[in-house]
C-alpha cells in the first residue's frame, strides 16, 4: 500500500510538475438564470423566464495546472410572454470536469490558460399542466476551454472562462415529441432509455453548438474564505431532429473555501 501511494505521488509530480503552490478551492454559488429558448420539438414559441440555479465547484490548482470540477443544477418555470397558461418546467444542469494549463506569456498580473473539459449537459422540458408534451437536449462530450485571469491585487482578481463544445453525443426526442413508442419504452426500460433513444454524433459543424462564457470577480476576504460574483452566458443551437436554440444568463454570487 505504501508503495502504491508513493508511486501515485511520483505520478502526480510528473503530471503536474514540481510545484510549491497547491490550492484546493470549494465554491458554492446560487442565482438566477435569465433564459430565453425555443425548442421546435416542444413549440414554435420562444419560452422565457428566470430559473433558479446552483453551482458547486471544486478546484485543484498548482503552479501551472488547474483541475476544476463543476456541478450545476437549475429549475423553474418558463412561458411565452403573451401566454400565461401553457407553461414549461425546465429541469437540468451539468457536470463539467476541466483541465487547464497555464500558457506562460510573462504578462504581469495576467495568467492565461488553455485546455479542455469533459461536459455532460442536460435540459429537460416538462409541461406545467396536463398536456402531452416533452422536450429535451442531453449532451455528453468534450469542449475546448480557455481562461484569462487578471490579478488586480493579492485579494482581488477577475477571471474570464470560455468553453466551446467540440465533439460528443447528443440525445433529442422524436421529431415532434411524444410518440406511441415513447410510452412503451418508458414502461419497459425506464425514463433514461427513453431520453437516450435518439442519439446523434454532435459537433459544432454539423448539429450542436454549445458555447459558455463566464466572467467572475473574486475577493479573498481571508486566506481561507473568499466571495465572488459571476455572470455566465450559455448559448445553444442544436438541430436534430428539429432546432432548439437560445441562451441563458446565469448571474450568481457565492463563497469559496480555500485550503
Amino acid at each position: 500500500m505504501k508503495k502504491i501511494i508513493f508511486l501515485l505521488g511520483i505520478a502526480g509530480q510528473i503530471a503536474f510538475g514540481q510545484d510549491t503552490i497547491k490550492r484546493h478551492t470549494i465554491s458554492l454559488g446560487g442565482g438566477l438564470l435569465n433564459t430565453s429558448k425555443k425548442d421546435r420539438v416542444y413549440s414554435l414559441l420562444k419560452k422565457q423566464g428566470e430559473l433558479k440555479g446552483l453551482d458547486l465547484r471544486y478546484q485543484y490548482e498548482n503552479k501551472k495546472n488547474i483541475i476544476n470540477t463543476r456541478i450545476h443544477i437549475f429549475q423553474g418555470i418558463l412561458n411565452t410572454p403573451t401566454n400565461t397558461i401553457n407553461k414549461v418546467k425546465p429541469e437540468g444542469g451539468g457536470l463539467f470536469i476541466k483541465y487547464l494549463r497555464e500558457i506562460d506569456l510573462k504578462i504581469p498580473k495576467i495568467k492565461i490558460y488553455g485546455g479542455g473539459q469533459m461536459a455532460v449537459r442536460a435540459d429537460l422540458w416538462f409541461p406545467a399542466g396536463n398536456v402531452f408534451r416533452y422536450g429535451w437536449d442531453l449532451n455528453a462530450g468534450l469542449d475546448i476551454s480557455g481562461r484569462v485571469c487578471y490579478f488586480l491585487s493579492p485579494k482581488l482578481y477577475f477571471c474570464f472562462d470560455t468553453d466551446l463544445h467540440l465533439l460528443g453525443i447528443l440525445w433529442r426526442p422524436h421529431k415532434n415529441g411524444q410518440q406511441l413508442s415513447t410510452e412503451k419504452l418508458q414502461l419497459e426500460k425506464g425514463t433514461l432509455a427513453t431520453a437516450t433513444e435518439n442519439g446523434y454524433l454532435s459537433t459544432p459543424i454539423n448539429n450542436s453548438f454549445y458555447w459558455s462564457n463566464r466572467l467572475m470577480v473574486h475577493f479573498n476576504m481571508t486566506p481561507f474564505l473568499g466571495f465572488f460574483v459571476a455572470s455566465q452566458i450559455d448559448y445553444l443551437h442544436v438541430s436534430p431532429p428539429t432546432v432548439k436554440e437560445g441562451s441563458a444568463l446565469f448571474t450568481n454570487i457565492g463563497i469559496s473555501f480555500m485550503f
Partner: protein
Amino acid sequence: MKSLKYLFFLLFLLFLECSKEPTESESIISDYKLVFDYLKSDYGYRDELFKDQSLDAIYKKYLPRIEKTPTKIELAKILLTIEHQELQDPHVYFSGTEKPKDLLFDDEIEFYVKPRADLFDPKLEAINIIKKDDFYTYGTVKTNPEIGYLYIRSFNRKTGGDSALGIPKGIDAVENYLKDLKDKGVKKMIVDIRSGAGGSSYVPLWVAKRFANKKAVYMIAEYDTVDGFKEEKWYVEPEGKEGFRKGKIALLTNGNTCSGGEMFVLAMLQRDNLVHMGSETEGCAGNIVDRDLANGWNLRMTNGKTKKADGSPYWKVGLKPEFIVKNTSNEGEDKVIKKAIQELRK
C-alpha cells in the same frame, strides 16, 4: 458632428421599430397562422384531403376573414369551424383551461359541435354489480350468472412518466376481477368499452393481453420522423397471472369509444371466439401531442398515424361492429347489453 447626431437618432428610431411589440390584431392573425404552421409540419394526417381540399386551401379560405376581423371571438369561431366542419378529426381540438369554446355561448357552440346520437352511457339494470372502482365495473348478468360483465370506464389517463408506476396496480385489479368471475362460474363475458376510456396506448394493450389467446399483429403505427413516416407493427399476445382466454366474449362499443379505447378494440378483435357489437367507434386514430398559441390556447392534434392490422384505416370512420345495435335514449333497457346476452346464450 450634427450629421452624426442625426444618424444616431435614426438608428434609435430603427431600433424602436425592430423591437416593437405586436398589436393585438397582429397577434391574433399570427396565432391563426401558427395553428396552420403546426398542422402543416406536425399533424400526422397533414397530407390527407379534407372535403377534397388541402390544409393549405383551408388556411387560405379563412385567412381573409380573420384579417378583416382580427378579434379573439372571430378567431374562436374560425378555429371551431375548422375543427368541427373542415378537419372533423376527433383528435384535433383545442384543449386546456382556456379554449375557443370558452368565449362562445352554448347556443353558438351547438352550431359547430354536433354530437352523434348514440353517445349514451351503459345502463346496468341487467347486471348484478359486484364492484365499481375508478376504472372498472364488474359483475354478472342477473338472468344468466354464467355470463360475466366488465365495463372499462377509464384507463390510466396519463401517458408514461410516473403514471407508469400505477399501471401494474390497475392490471392487478383486472386480473383479480377476472379470477373472481371465473371462481363464480362465469364461462362467457361481456366486455363493454362504451366510454371515453383512452389517454394511453400501452395500458389498453395490457388489459387486452388478459383476454388474448394468441400472438397477433393488432395495429400498424406510422411515426413521423425527419426522414418521413416509419412503420411499426404492434402485437398482442397472452400475458398475466389471470385471464379470460377461452369463453366467448361480446365486445361492446359506440361513438364514445375512441383513441386508446379503439386500440383496445383492435387488440381484442384478434382474439378468437369474440363478437363485436354496438355502433362504430369514433375513429380517433394516431397518437396526440399538444402545441401552444401565443394567446393561451392549446392545440391538441395527432402526430402519427395508426391503422388496422390489415393496413386499412379507421381514422375518422371508426371500427364497425359485426352487429349494429344502438341505444336511442337514456330511458329504458340497454339494447346493446340485451343483444350481447342473446348472442352469448347461443
